[in-house]
């Protein structure tokens, strides 16, 4: 019996001893990101995981701090000519790529040219650019055809697609083909040999990185690295398993815990849950402007009037302190947010929605509403939308499908009964919709171009063009208000409220700061 007890004790001790690879190494930061990392080219796709990968290994010319102010990052100094058409930039000294080569003006030019073919703001900016040239080893010049009010805003944009600076030879890759090499000048070096899609991505500290002197804030400031290695666990995607792993200390940071599991995490004394982003995310209902019934702006207005935000937020988020209503189409709490023109939704009620629908001449055409069943982050929104629309008098055909089917289907311009659609719901990170250029719904060029739903409105386009050209902040604000008022008038889409997606971390992890993305510099592990 004593032998048996001894054997059991030995086995218990042996089993509970941590494995060598799991040794609690304070130099290794183990993170479960919000999704899988598949595409390693942050210019080729707008996927947030690719953007976050970009922030690990690349640096940017400018960044946006937690107060939404653009600040220099790789750029040291810059000047603007009195006619605001010639911009000269000088890079900081000591900037070098991971292979040791210095960052040059030519690298910047090639990187911006590639980004300018893919990103909405980049495309808009390049429309103004007459000439982009290197003017020295560490300098470049941007000459504009006419003054433009968003040069720094575009260069410092914090979300997809971020104008990351790559080596010239890599940045010269066709913008519609993915890059093959991943050499940046950012705070971490990507370990290509250890990258296993669906398993893990590994980054090591870039020992040669020279951080700025300023404190980190948003995507700006000193990118100090205090860990030797960051491991993204791409295999751990079960929500409960993620929480279990964090509770046991097998991971250090969980980027996006599931909302229902947050109260349990908050009760854990070893875990801290907090909102890292100064700007929230926003839910949105998008109408297809090409087909009945939403080709009629009055019908869209009726839907807008029916969509009180609170029911959506309650159903989807549920945790009161994590959500709030926001009338603005531009992220609340950011410079262009306002309540101009929002009355149709903010002062809406079901009676008004019913009246508007009746007055619109709606003929009972069913609304094909796509519901993703496998995306927990938004899967409850369509049910609420369907219920509210039915109450308003719409006929709704709620079609369940997986998210990727929805993604494929929403790109189709066919009629809803031929494989197309009428409406879907989604969520945006704040920086992606916080001004009229970045906000894809404000690109109202119609079927010829623009974002899914293909809204067409010449007045918005005209105001948007004025906004792009305006260099005075006050006037830009007025133009943004006018754009929003018009967007509500023609009901381009329906904002459905805002929410925070907090991260959860072990208390041993410190040094987080507020920013508009998942940034892993300045983080310490004790």
């Amino acid at each position, binding site marked *: 019996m004593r032998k048996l007890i001894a054997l059991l004790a030995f086995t*218990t001790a042996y089993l509970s001893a941590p494995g060598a690879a799991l040794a609690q190494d304070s130099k290794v930061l183990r993170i479960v990101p919000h999704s*899988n990392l598949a595409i390693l080219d942050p210019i080729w796709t707008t996927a947030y995981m690719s953007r976050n990968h970009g922030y690990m290994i690349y640096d940017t010319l400018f960044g946006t701090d937690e107060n939404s102010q653009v600040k220099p990052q790789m750029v040291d100094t810059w000047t603007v000519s009195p006619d605001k058409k010639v911009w000269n930039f000088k890079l900081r000294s000591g900037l070098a790529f991971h292979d040791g080569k210095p960052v040059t003006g030519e690298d910047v030019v090639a990187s911006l040219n590639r980004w300018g073919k893919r990103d909405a703001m980049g495309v808009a900016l390049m429309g103004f650019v007459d000439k982009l040239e290197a003017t020295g080893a560490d300098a470049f010049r941007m000459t504009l055809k006419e003054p433009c009010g968003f040069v720094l805003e575009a260069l410092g944009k914090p979300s997809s697609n971020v104008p990351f600076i790559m080596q010239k030879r890599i940045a010269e890759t066709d913008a519609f083909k993915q890059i093959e090499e991943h050499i940046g000048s950012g705070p971490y070096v990507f370990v290509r040999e250890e990258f*296993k899609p669906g398993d893990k991505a590994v980054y090591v500290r870039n020992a040669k990185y020279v951080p700025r002197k300023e404190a980190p804030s948003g995507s700006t400031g000193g990118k100090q690295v205090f860990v030797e290695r960051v491991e993204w666990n791409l295999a751990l995607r079960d929500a409960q398993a993620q929480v279990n792993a964090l509770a046991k200390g*097998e991971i250090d940071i969980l980027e996006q815990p599931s909302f229902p599991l947050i109260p349990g995490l908050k009760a854990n004394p070893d875990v801290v849950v907090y909102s890292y982003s100064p700007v929230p995310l926003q839910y949105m209902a998008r109408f297809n402007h090409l087909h009945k019934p939403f080709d009629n702006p009055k019908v869209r207005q009726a839907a807008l009037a029916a969509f009180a935000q609170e029911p959506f937020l309650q159903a989807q988020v549920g945790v009161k302190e994590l959500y709030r209503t926001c009338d603005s189409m531009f992220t609340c709490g950011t410079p262009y947010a306002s309540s101009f023109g929002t009355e149709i939704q903010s002062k809406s009620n079901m009676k008004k929605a019913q009246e508007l629908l009746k007055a619109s001449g709606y003929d009972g055409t069913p609304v094909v509403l796509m519901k993703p069943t496998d995306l927990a982050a938004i899967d409850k929104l369509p049910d609420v939308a369907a219920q509210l629309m039915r109450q308003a008098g719409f006929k709704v055909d709620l079609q369940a499908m997986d998210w990727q089917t929805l993604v494929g289907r929403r790109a189709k311009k066919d009629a809803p009964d031929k494989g197309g659609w009428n409406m879907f719901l989604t969520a945006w990170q704040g920086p992606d919709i916080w001004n009229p250029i970045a906000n894809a719904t404000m690109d109202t060029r119609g079927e010829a171009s623009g974002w899914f739903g293909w809204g067409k409105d010449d007045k918005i386009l005209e105001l948007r063009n004025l906004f792009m050209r305006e260099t005075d902040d006050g006037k830009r604000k007025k133009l943004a208000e006018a754009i929003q008022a018009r967007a509500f008038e023609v009901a381009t889409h329906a904002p459905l409220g805002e929410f925070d997606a907090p991260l959860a971390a072990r208390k041993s992890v410190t040094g987080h700061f507020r920013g508009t993305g998942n940034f892993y510099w300045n983080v310490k592990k004790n």
Partner: protein
Amino acid sequence: MLNFVLRRLLATIPVLLIVAVLVFLMLRLAPGDPAAILAGDAASTEQIARIRTNLGLDRPIVVQFGIWAGNMLAGDLGESFYYKMKVVKLIGQRLEPTLALATFTILFAVLVSVPLGVVAAWRFGGWFDRALMGFSVLGFSIPVFVLAYILIYLVSLKLGLLPVQGYQRIGDGFWPFFRHLILPSVTLSVIYIALIARVTRASVLEALGEDYIRTARAKGLPEFRVLVRHGLANAAVPIVTVIGIGIALLIGGVVVTESVYAIPGLGRLTVDAVLARDFPTIQGVILFFSFVYVLLNLLIDLSYVFLDPRIRY
């Protein structure tokens, strides 16, 4: 015998061809657009169209199939749309975790279930037999993820004995490798223990009623020998068949276990590929699974020769 093996191997060719055509067509007819998925949320329709062209998805299906079939015959399963890696390399990366999980699971299941089944047959109608039958009903009924969460809560979180999740490659050392596989294997093996134990019990029970068992006992052989040498040996064919089918099902059926325990195996690869409409990867993985099934069936058939001398090919 050699002729039989050769014939069976040759027979895999039309099977794989039919699978290839069916999978190819089904994927092309299924809803979803890989280009739209790859482009991301904020992409415009023009950008998606450019990506579709780059992937060759704008070509006629016949042309796409011709290119893919040609590459496949040359041993190239293509490149993943999603990961930009060779499908063969992706499968290679994911094979070890799935094989390890399947091997440990089936080993554990066989080591536990066969003795249980034999004892249950030997003590037919007794409390042990009834308890085993009750357990097997429970084993069949309890969902894998429920069992996984219960085991994780008790063994990992409360007792702190084993890791909650993850996989360590065998190259990183046997102990970390083994330690990470204990809970997933135990979780996954329960249903197989239930299945194999029932089949073993039924087969051995049938064998124990045969004349040669009575003769063996009459000769005065020890009961253990009677059970193993005469009972179990003669009941082996159905047991081995079930084990073989179990292995085949395991290879492709480990998705839930791999998800809950964060094991980067072939099951997860398949699910991710399906969700991303990563056609080359789905096609490659399904072809690989088909080949494994055919091979396992062949091995099971060959094992009959050794288990039952009356069987000849």
